[in-house]
């Protein structure tokens, strides 16, 4: 097996565009293909022929908004950005890029936290933002068919008057697109009961790297043949470009009530979560916040979170009043066994909305007080207390601070490691602490990422979770879709040890 050695190996010190800060760059990208860079003008002209007016961005100044995503410490200016309006145009751009060996980076709203949508100098970014129509809502079949650039929230908004919603609800749902959700197999607070994107996706229209348009699945359950839809979901833009999706709608419950449970220690809260699930109770959501996160979110949302506790659980139950009461009673009894200090039910729809606003703004609110990186490891529930303790120790060892706010019910942790991006050493320490935390998650039987994807961020940790044979098998499947590794090529798989194209 040949090994590709085109790696941008040096640790680049690069000027940050936003604040003139200098950040250590630990993670490499594939070196740009010189042949592609040299043909830049021609490529731009050709793409302009393939796309309608206003659908191609190429002046350097206008490329800047596309140089990164929500993993902002890394940036690369792309060669050009194509913003097609139809599946046919997506196919035409892919066919062209495939023919000339030009890398393509699919992009939705660019809210990826793992660098999944960060481009590279020789790549054409293919943005789906102009494809944002809701094509069909079929209540009798409980499905919506939408273009890939539709935002997550727009789907629920379009069906809510009729009493339905689309279940996976990333905190970024106002901005992120269904195409990006499929790319990352995104989750959200309410996925404990309803599952993540892959469990709510029925079909896609997919453009393969050579421009071939295929349909996977549809309104019928369980598509024929191999479950290609299952591997495309979470494929991080490496297997094809999704232009349309059919998703499952769910009837809104009669009522929903978030309840706050405050504890004196992280251990007690963590153990309470494990016992609730272990007792066979599956609420819609169990979210966890530690003291720093509570302070940050309360200052932002004024949600009435208790301030005198070390750890807070937001538990949402749903159903009729009687059902909610019954489930809550069972949960409260378990929480008592774990010394719960405060139990606070929301008193009105407005209070409930504030509780969720506080939780869903956690990342944004944290960003106002410090720079942060967000980890996303998932652990078996029984390990939650242990990993929370381990996280605190690791972060303390590096002399940093951490705020924990995450989807506790499914063990999906989000430690936000706070640091100062103006201090390159602090930034490097934060990255190192994050890596240690993720390794801890894997070592207790968990995984590197529960919903944010590998992107570039966790790429070089993949060998901690997978053996060479495991990775080789995944890469072989990747190559079955994209033999030349043109789609989002710097992501997910460590750059060393890839099979030759």
């Amino acid at each position, binding site marked *: 097996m040949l090994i590709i050695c085109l790696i941008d190996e040096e640790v680049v010190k690069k000027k940050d565009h936003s604040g003139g800060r200098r950040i250590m760059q630990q993670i490499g990208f594939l070196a740009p293909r010189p042949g592609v860079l040299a043909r830049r003008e021609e490529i731009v002209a050709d793409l302009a022929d393939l796309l309608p007016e206003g659908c191609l961005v190429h002046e350097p100044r206008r490329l800047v908004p596309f140089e990164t995503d929500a993993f902002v410490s890394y940036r690369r200016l792309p060669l050009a950005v194509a913003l097609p309006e139809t599946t046919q145009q997506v196919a035409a751009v892919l066919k062209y890029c495939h023919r000339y060996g030009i890398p393509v980076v699919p992009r939705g709203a660019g809210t990826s936290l793992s660098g999944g949508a960060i481009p590279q100098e020789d790549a054409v970014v293919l943005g789906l933002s102009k494809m944002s129509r809701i094509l069909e809502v079929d209540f009798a079949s409980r499905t919506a068919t939408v273009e890939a650039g539709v935002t997550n929230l727009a789907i629920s908004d379009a069906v809510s008057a009729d009493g339905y919603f689309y279940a996976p609800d990333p905190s970024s749902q106002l901005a992120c697109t269904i195409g990006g959700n499929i790319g990352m197999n995104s989750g959200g607070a309410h996925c404990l009961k309803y599952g993540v994107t892959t469990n709510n996706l029925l079909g896609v229209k997919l453009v393969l790297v050579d421009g071939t348009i295929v349909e996977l699945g549809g309104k019928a359950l369980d*598509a*024929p043949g191999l479950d290609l839809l299952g591997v495309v979901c979470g494929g991080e833009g490496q297997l094809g470009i999704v232009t349309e999706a059919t998703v499952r709608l769910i009837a809104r419950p009669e009522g929903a009530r978030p309840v706050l449970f405050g504890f004196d220690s992280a251990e007690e809260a963590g153990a309470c979560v494990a016992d609730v699930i272990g007792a066979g109770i599956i609420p819609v959501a169990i979210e966890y916040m530690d003291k720093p996160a509570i302070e940050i979110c309360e200052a932002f949302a004024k949600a009435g979170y208790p301030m005198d506790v070390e750890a807070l659980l937001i538990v949402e139950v749903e159903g009729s009043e009687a059902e909610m009461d019954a489930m809550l009673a069972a949960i409260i009894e378990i929480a008592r066994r774990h010394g719960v200090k405060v139990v606070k039910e929301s008193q009105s729809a407005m209070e409930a909305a504030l509780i969720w606003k506080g939780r869903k703004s956690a990342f944004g609110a944290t960003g106002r007080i410090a720079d942060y990186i967000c980890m996303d490891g998932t652990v078996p529930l029984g390990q939650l207390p242990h990993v929370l303790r381990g996280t605190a120790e690791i972060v303390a060892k590096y002399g940093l601070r951490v705020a924990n706010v995450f989807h506790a019910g499914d063990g999906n942790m989000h430690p936000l490691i706070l640091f100062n991006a103006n201090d390159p050493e602090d930034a490097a320490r934060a990255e190192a602490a994050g890596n240690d935390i993720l390794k801890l998650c894997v070592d207790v039987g968990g995984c590197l990422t529960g919903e944010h994807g590998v992107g570039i961020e966790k790429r070089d940790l993949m060998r901690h979770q997978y053996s060479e044979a*495991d990775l080789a098998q995944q890469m072989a499947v990747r190559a079955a879709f994209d033999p030349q590794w043109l789609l989002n090529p710097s992501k997910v798989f460590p750059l060393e040890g890839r099979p030759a194209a």
Partner: protein
Amino acid sequence: MSLRHEPLSEAAAARLVQAASLGGARLAIRGGGTRSLVQPPEEADILSTRGLAGIVDYTPAEMTMTVRVGTPLSEIVETLAENRQMLSFEPLDLRAALGTSGAPTIGGVFATNASGPRRFVAGAARDSLLGVRFVNGRGEIVKAGGRVMKNVTGLDLVKLLTGSQGSLALLTEVTFRVLPLPETALTVVVSGLDDGLAVAAMATAVSLSVEVSGAAHLPESVRGRFAGGVLPEGAATVFRLEGLAASVTARAEKLEAALARFGAVYRADAETTLTLWREIRDAAPYADGTARPLWRVSVGPTAGHQLVAALRLETGVDAFYDWQGGLVWLRMEADAEAELLRRYVRAVGGGHATLLRARPEVLCAVPVFEPQPEALAALEGRVKAAFDPSGVFVSRMVAE
């Protein structure tokens, strides 16, 4: 005559597959053999998973179980039930319908993505499977996924392997999530609806916040063959509600009120519910001791009855519906009619039809799995080669 191999460990299985791939031999993977109505092609040896059995890990509080693939499904179901847990996707047992014997294995369940009535709300086998170990066609031992509920680390090979019908790799160990057994269940029955009205009633039921966990329509031709004939006269449109007793009763009242405008409404108790939905799951009315062609067709929920109505004009069929009308169990009275059926499936908006039972010569001649369009068939061929480059594993799932 085919040889039969029964490796007793994953390592032995890997050696066997590696030798086969180097020697150009071919292997047909077999679990309980409950779906094997025809023998594999003569040149292929049988690779039995029966020696790879046993529960490896079960942590009820974490709602996950890890088992070797040759473990009988019955052992798993019983162990889970002791802890009041279950497989949420209700794996089918088609032995009676197919006239086969043997014990279904958990590996076979996941390799066929066999999912019953709860599938349309709670997901399929593929949605419960968290992680796998497998031997690919090179004889390499590979793992994918893990044992946590949320995991997007790398490509989701777990999904790809579920339902791959032995075409890609030999699964050796599976980790899946389980759910609590509902405290109780009941069935709301609406009588006398024709297929079209039944679809409307089912759409109404799922639009309410009552969480039906089963919605099926049993036309008059089959109704009497369910639950020992206790369902009221006429077609039966049935809705299952599960959960805590108080909640189930409250939801039943709400559902009954909403369905009263469609027809006469009855309630079936927990015991009848258990039998009824097991029979729906296993296509019990077609366990008729014949080899008349039996199809399992998946279409959009509002398309199933249109498909059957169209077919009726051309050929003799008998049918009932699960999954809110989207899963059609079809028994042809004479010929398999594969082409006709698939043409109509496309005409009603698409889906797929799988032939489960027919005379052996028909099963050999007819594509039992839905043929794929050219571009997808080519892609599937490349995916197959990514797991099994020399074509060790024989299966009719992926076109060769």
